[in-house]
Structures are given as structure tokens and as C-alpha cells.
């Protein structure tokens, strides 16, 4: 899997203010029969974007935005809760998102997103409210300095697990790091047998 290294990004936001947006919303289970990770963007938020006849819903915020200019998703609390399907970050990345901002992002989703070039950003309640109330705002997310900057100059810092941050900055999957631990793994296995 290759993804673009993430260093810094300035882009407009798409706001989905609902709390508890689960992975079944991000990509419904009927799209999980694929054996590939490519092209899942068309299934992203499918039931929010399309009606029963497969027609695009005008009411969907996601149908009205240009993914080229709107690469930051701002969501309600507990984003990405539910299943461990990595198809969720694959779909969001393929749709065009490069970062998700919320007050609270689910553990497995966070772990999966970080391995796929999609930066999960957890911000304080005040910053979250400001972002929820200004859809389309051009925000700057800098992974080097771990800061988010809003158009009005408001700025806040965010936490990222240091190893995952390094992998994102370099655009690499952590498998190489694990493979480099082979002698320690062998020693561990030998010690148990």
C-alpha cells in the first residue's frame, strides 16, 4: 500500500456534525466483499450520498463538494466507532480526504487511518465547535509542528503517536520496522519453546 507522505495540508473542510458516525455509515458492509483496497471512494458514505434508486441525494453535503479542494473531514464525537474494517479509511482516502478532525475518534479507526495516509486529528471541545460551525473553512494541518490553524488565526496543537507520525511523514507502512525485529522475535519464540 502506498500513500502520499503527509507533512502539511491546507484545505477546506467538509462538516458532518453527527456524533457516533460508525464504520457502517462510512462504508456499508455490502461493499466489503471486495478482495482489493482500490476504488472504495465511490462507496464512501454511500447510503448518505445515494437514494434507493442510486440517485445522488441533493441533501448530502458530500455530493456538493469538490474532493480536490475539500480534503479535511470535520465530524461529531466518537467518529469511526464500530467495526475494525480498514475499508473505512481506504474509502475516505480514495474519496479524497487526507485528514479527519473530531473531539474523539475511535481506537481501531485511528490505528487503521494512521497506516493509510489519513491523519486523525483530535482537538479540544472549543476548537471542535468552531470547526463544526464553519463548514468550508480553509484549515491548515501541520504534522511537523502538530498544529491545526483556522482562518481566523485560532491555533491548537494535537497529539499523534510518535511512531505513526514518523511513518506518515515518510509515507511508509510500519511493516518494515516489524520485519527489522526478526531476531528479537526469534529470541522470544526460542525462550518459550
Amino acid at each position: 500500500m502506498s500513500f502520499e507522505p503527509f507533512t502539511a495540508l491546507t484545505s477546506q473542510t467538509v462538516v458532518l456534525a453527527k456524533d457516533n458516525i460508525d464504520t457502517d455509515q462510512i462504508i456499508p458492509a455490502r461493499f466489503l466483499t471486495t478482495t482489493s483496497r482500490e476504488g472504495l471512494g465511490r462507496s464512501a458514505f454511500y447510503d448518505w450520498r445515494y437514494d434507493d434508486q442510486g440517485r445522488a441525494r441533493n441533501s448530502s453535503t458530500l455530493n456538493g463538494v469538490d474532493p480536490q479542494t475539500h480534503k479535511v473531514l470535520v465530524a461529531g464525537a466518537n467518529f469511526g466507532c464500530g467495526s475494525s474494517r480498514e475499508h473505512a479509511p481506504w474509502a475516505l482516502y480514495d474519496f479524497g480526504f487526507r485528514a479527519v478532525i473530531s473531539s474523539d475518534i475511535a481506537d481501531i479507526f485511528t490505528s487503521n487511518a494512521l497506516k493509510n495516509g489519513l491523519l486523525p486529528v483530535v482537538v479540544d471541545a472549543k476548537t471542535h465547535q468552531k470547526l463544526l460551525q464553519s463548514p468550508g473553512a480553509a484549515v491548515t494541518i501541520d504534522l511537523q509542528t502538530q498544529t491545526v490553524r483556522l482562518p481566523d488565526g485560532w491555533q491548537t496543537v494535537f497529539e499523534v503517536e510518535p511512531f505513526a507520525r514518523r511513518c506518515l511523514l515518510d509515507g511508509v507502512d510500519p511493516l518494515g520496522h516489524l520485519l527489522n525485529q526478526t531476531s528479537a522475535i526469534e529470541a522470544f519464540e526460542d525462550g518459550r519453546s
Partner: protein
Amino acid sequence: MTAKSLFDKLWERHVVVEETADAPAVLFIDLHLVHEVTSPQAFSVLKDRGLKVRRPDLTIATLDHSTPTLPADEKGELPYATPEAKAQVETLIDNCKEHGITLFGLGDPRRGIVHVIGPELGLTQPGKTIVCGDSHTSTHGAFGALAFGIGTTEVGHVLATQCVLQRKPRSMRVRFEGAPAFGVTAKDLALATIAQIGADGGQGYAVEFAGPAIENLSMEGRMTLCNMSIEAGARFGMIAPDKTAFDWLKGRDYAPTDAAWDEAVSDWRALQTEEGAHFDKDVVVDAAAVKPMITFGVSPDAAAAVDGVQPSAADDDVAADYMQFEPDKPFSENAVHRVFIGSCTNSRLSDLRLAARVLRGRRVKDDVVALIVPGSEAVRREAEAEGLHKVFLDAGAEWREPGCSMCIAMNGDAGAPGDLVVSTSNRNFMGRQGKGVRTVLASPATAAASAIEGRIADPRPYLKDPAERFDVV
């Protein structure tokens, strides 16, 4: 010496490389469970990088999510929902063959839902680290294992190195005080706990469930409770292994035997949380106050007693708009269209016995479709040996082949738009059981009672004998 928790001990036993400021710990995995949905892309990574499966001996695969629950036709063709579903199943069969992985596949008497067969085969054991590309892997924590769901990239990591990169999460203890009342099951305890702490209340934590109500809980009930940890946001749920766990495991296919068994049990006994062990957070649940529970929203923390009324909601409440439950109306006034009894949460023999106890000699209401799906081939055999399938069929329910079925509704088993489904599964998310389907989570007893009445129903009138209380739990 500092007192240690079950979680501390499980963690320490599996650290290959300690975590540092720069990198997470490298954690060794004792059992990797694999299914068809979250593994194909991981095997592709191995192929692309020319890697082999490091420990096929610690890897077990099965087919459960995409598989039909209706039998093969006269030509032997299974009724797959789509050609993609069939291709996904065949991909896992091929990958297992290529990498020498044991697969409990189609036609194998050991096949079933991954979280049902792990324990029933004795693969799941106290003290193990267990991962699977599935968030309900926490189920196995019921035996005192460190069990957690991982993504597909991590499935690839475990296939290639038998390890995951993981920082040690914070710890939480949830103590259940008091004895559950008559008619209350582990599912009700789980829903009450999630309602109390919230759908993100366990986020970032490894949770140990403890207290008198847990010590008295059956092994199946413990699995149901640990299974639902993730619905409170907790990736890890666990219970200290005790005699209940050891008795349950003894004699199972993969359990140790003879002297090795005795040695294992004495090792497992040492896993108990020690007095004074530190937890980052402590929660107390009043188990005696819990009633049979249902959910009324689109997040599992929107749960309340089945005999209650719909809370009022804000005008823009997405859940209220989706569920179409009128404010202040008793839950029992909502008509039910389908009932699903199954899933890794509630598809074990004890769940089916409980459902049968309610349905015996009664009829599923006309126009209600009731689907009963055993968790594994073994559960199916045992249920049929007891005649439970006859109870279900006589009541007008459908008795299907094992699998995940309507819990995730990706195999063709799904409701129709607008249907209200009372389901023993774990997620009431919008569209989870089919586009536009409204899900009410409940215990097998509540689901069975609702099937009879054709509306959300309190199971207690159907469970007459209070002396059988602990049998219910």
C-alpha cells in the same frame, strides 16, 4: 512489589520489544484468527513483498461473514449474495492452501463464526494474546486472554511477523455489584453498561469486568459481555480466568491434556488481578438494578429497560428521525417485522436454549419473519440433538446454517427498508441489517418474546420459574 492486574500480566508475558518514546511495543501473538472479509488485502501485501506466513501453526481461518445461511441447491451451488462474495470465499481458500494455514471451511464440522469456534475448539485459552481482523475479538477475553480486533494492515503484520505494534492502553475495571434479577441476561448487563458509560466510554482502555455478578456468570454470558466491550469503544475486554473457565475448556479439541492440562491450569490461576492493582479508571455497575434491555436509537448506548417509554428527543435528532419511535410511547407499542437470533454475541447453545424456552409451544406472530442462526456447526449439531430446531420450526421460525448472517447483512440475509428488527446482535447502526432497516438490540429471550407478540416484548412473563434465575444468566 507492585500489585499487578490481569491485563498487566497478559501484557508483560507477550512483550518482544518494550515500547519507547519513539516506538510502540512489539507484542507477540499466540493465536491469529482469520476470516474472508478482512484478510485478502493482507495476503496480497505478503505476495507483493515476497513474504511468507511466519507461523501458520498459530493461524486458524474460517468462513463466516460472506457465507450463505441457506443450503446448497441440487447442483451443490451455495446461494451467494453476489459473485464477489463467492470470490472472496474462494480467495481465502486459496490463500490458506498456499500458506499452509488450517481452514475450517465449507463442509467442515468445525466451521462457524470465528468468535464462536475459537472458544468451542479450545483454541482460545487463558493467558493467550489473540487477534483477528474483527472488532468483536474481545469476546475471547472472557477466558482471561488479551484479545483484540485489528485492521487489515495489522493482519498482514501478524501474518508476516506474528507480532503487532501496540502501545499499552490505559486500564479500566468495571465491577458488577449485586445479583442480576430474574430474566436478566449477560446481554442486558452489557447494554446497561454501555448505556451507563457511553459508546465511547471505554475508548483508549483495556477493560476488566469483575465483581460478584461476573464470578457467578456462565462462560457463555462472559463471552457475550466481553463481546460487547467494543460497543463502549473498548478494544480489549477481559475477565479473570477461574474454575468456570477451566471446567468449560477441559476436554476441548485444542485444550491441553493430562499433565500439560494441570500445568496450564496452575499457570492460568496466577493470572488473577492482585489486590491493590492499579486501574486508571474504576466503574461500578449496579447489576441488581438492571432489567431486560433494548436499544431505541442508532448507537448501542441508546439503551433502556424494555418496559420503559421512548425518551423525548431534539427536533434534529438523527436517531429519532431514523427509528420513528414516538416520544413518551411505551417501547412495547412498536410493531416488529423481523427477529434475528444469532451473531457472535448470542448464537451459542445457551442462547438457543433460552430462545427455545420462550418459544416452546408458542407461535411466531403472523407476518413476523424470525431467523435463528446457530453460531457454528457444533452449536447446530448440539441444538438439533436436543430438538431445539424443532421447537423453532414448530413455532414458525426459520432454522439456518451457521454464519454471521443478519448481524452484518453482507451475505444476503437482510431486512427490508423500514423493517423493525429485534436482534440479538451487537450493532444498531443505521443500515447495519439492510438499507433503511431499524434495529433493536436485545437478549435472545427478549427477541423470542418479541417474535411471539409481534411487538417489542418483555421476556419475563415467558420465563416463569424464578428458581431458574442463574440458568437465565
